């Protein structure tokens, strides 16, 4: 492969991989605290994209109960500028975080208080996902929505640079997605690694029983975890939506499955693992030759299958010894 093509693929892969990473972090945070995979995470991703779309003054089409609705018509402070979009994305993601907390309250906490089989929590979170996805369908219909042009303000449409006689094109969106993801990951890494809250979170993840004996309110930190998880999922939805458009209520289903591949690849419950896993899968997908692009969707799952067979604990996960 020529150098320019190689570089192009690397840059494309890093951009999409960084979104996989922040999405998968939401899964991994919940898993590290509760030991359970929240299957409603994909639905939260979809919701985040729709929240932002609504705030940015997106108009709904002719299907669903919200037909023709435009909550913030043009001229509202949240439409038409890059800052407006940034603010909408922030509020949209916060709302997604709130939804994740509600999901915890409805689908996970009752299970914990009964110390039920973790599998039941899985089914219950799937039930919640089913409810959310179908409620979206009832409200806004099944069609795809595109974020309006110009949400990224007056930035040039693409960054170009030349390498020999080839031109490498990076979409502005990709740069923004990558930058936002990296900043977010650094902030999150700092919060978890350095702050008091992060220490408490890690203590709860290590051993909830001991943590509660040490005066840490486990319930409170579970809520914080779910809020962070929803925030990350919602933001990932907004970023992907702003790049490709929202592909209907089932937008997050495939993404949710890919997120699972990402966290297992990196190591279940490992935060750096989620980042590495996301970037690896993003890069692997970018390098699928165009004549096989139909098989791109299978790349993440093929990698997942292989890694499970070769190194079940994932790239950065720690081996665990079976307890007797």
């Amino acid at each position, binding site marked *: 492969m020529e150098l320019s093509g190689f570089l192009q693929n690397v840059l494309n892969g890093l951009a999409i991989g960084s979104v996989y990473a922040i999405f998968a972090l939401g899964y991994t945070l919940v898993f590290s605290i509760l*030991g359970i995979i929240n299957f409603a995470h994909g639905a939260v991703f979809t919701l985040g994209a729709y929240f932002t779309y609504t705030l940015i003054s997106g108009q709904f089409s002719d299907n669903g109960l919200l037909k023709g609705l435009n909550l913030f018509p043009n001229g509202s402070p949240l439409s038409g500028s890059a800052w407006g979009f940034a603010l909408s994305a922030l509020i949209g993601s916060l709302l997604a975080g709130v939804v994740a907390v509600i999901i915890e309250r409805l689908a996970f906490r009752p299970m914990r208080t009964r110390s039920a089989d973790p599998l039941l929590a899985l089914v*219950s979170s799937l*039930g919640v996902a089913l409810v959310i996805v179908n409620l979206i369908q009832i409200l806004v219909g099944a069609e795809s929505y595109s974020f309006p042009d110009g949400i990224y303000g007056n930035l040039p449409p693409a960054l170009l640079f030349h390498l020999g006689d080839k031109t490498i094109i990076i979409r502005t969106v990709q740069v923004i997605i990558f930058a936002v993801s990296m900043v977010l990951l650094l902030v999150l890494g700092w919060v978890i690694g350095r702050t008091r809250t992060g220490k408490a979170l890690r203590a709860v993840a290590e051993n909830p029983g001991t943590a509660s004996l040490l005066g840490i309110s486990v319930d409170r930190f579970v809520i914080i975890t779910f809020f962070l998880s929803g925030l990350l999922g919602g933001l990932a939805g907004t970023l992907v939506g702003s790049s490709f458009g929202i592909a209907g209520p089932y937008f997050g289903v495939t993404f949710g499955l890919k997120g699972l591949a990402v966290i297992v690849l990196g190591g279940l419950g490992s935060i750096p693992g989620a980042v590495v896993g996301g970037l690896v899968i993003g890069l692997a997908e970018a390098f699928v030759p165009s004549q096989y692009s139909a098989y791109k969707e299978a790349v993440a799952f093929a990698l997942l299958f292989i890694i499970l067979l070769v190194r*079940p604990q994932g790239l950065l996960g720690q081996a665990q010894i079976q307890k007797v």
Partner: protein
Amino acid sequence: MEFLQQYGFLIATMLQQGLLGLSLYAPLMAGQLSLASPGFYAVGGYIAAILLTNPAFAGWRDSLGYGIYPLTWLLAALACALLGLLVGVPALRLRGIYLALATIAFVEILRVLSLNLEITGGAVGIFAIPQPFGFVDRWQYLWLFLPLLILTLLFFRQLSKSRTGRAFRAIREDELAADAMGVSPTRYKVLAFVIGAVLAGIVGSMSAPFLNTWNAKQGTFDASIAYLAFVLIGGSRSMWGPLVGGALLSALPEVLRGLADWRLVINGLVLVVASLYLPQGIVGSLSRKPKPPTRPKPPTLNEGPSGPPYTSETT
């Protein structure tokens, strides 16, 4: 007769879904949570659909007559047994959630393949699949699904009484102890997995003509989840559980038909409420047997990544 005309299709669907629930129950007998059933179901269906419609097999169809249908069941069973071995031997080194995720990956890879291969008809799939034995009404599939169900239930009953069934239960309750007693976990886990694969494959090969069309939508993650819900809502500790769960949950959208758009929302709510209030499943709650002993758990939370049954294996 009028009753069958009206409800026969629904009843046949309920039996078919119950059978698929049972295909997920088979590996669970040995304590293995596998979500691979839709993959095998899809493979079985594709084998039948291709044999019954592809011009390449026209000669076989002419010479075999209706005999082609039993042949599709047999081939589907063989292919799924082989595929089950191929996937099962490496995958069953994994435990709990890791096995579940590996099987999800298996189903997704099959889905993408069937969506893009030529022989599976790509995204459109295969349609106009001829009906077996001169069937004109869908309810007549009861003559296929009912005997298969009875055979399956008899098989599972005999199995659970046999040495093999006791080995399954031993592994389910405590794999390490079973291993220490000389029960080879790998062998029995793969066997249970293959039984489920074969059952799902046969149901698939009967369902392709039943649905008249076969495409990549038949084997998806959604289906994995639906079958898992059958087993957990019905009850995972008796063979009647997946059957009852499958029949009830597949009838639910039909019963709620009057609510049109809202039925899937209600379906989701049923899953949430049932997993909260019927932790043993419907059948488990009805039976008077004492609760199976549960492992002691910490007061509020599971132990995180290392706690049962989400335990990764490295030996």
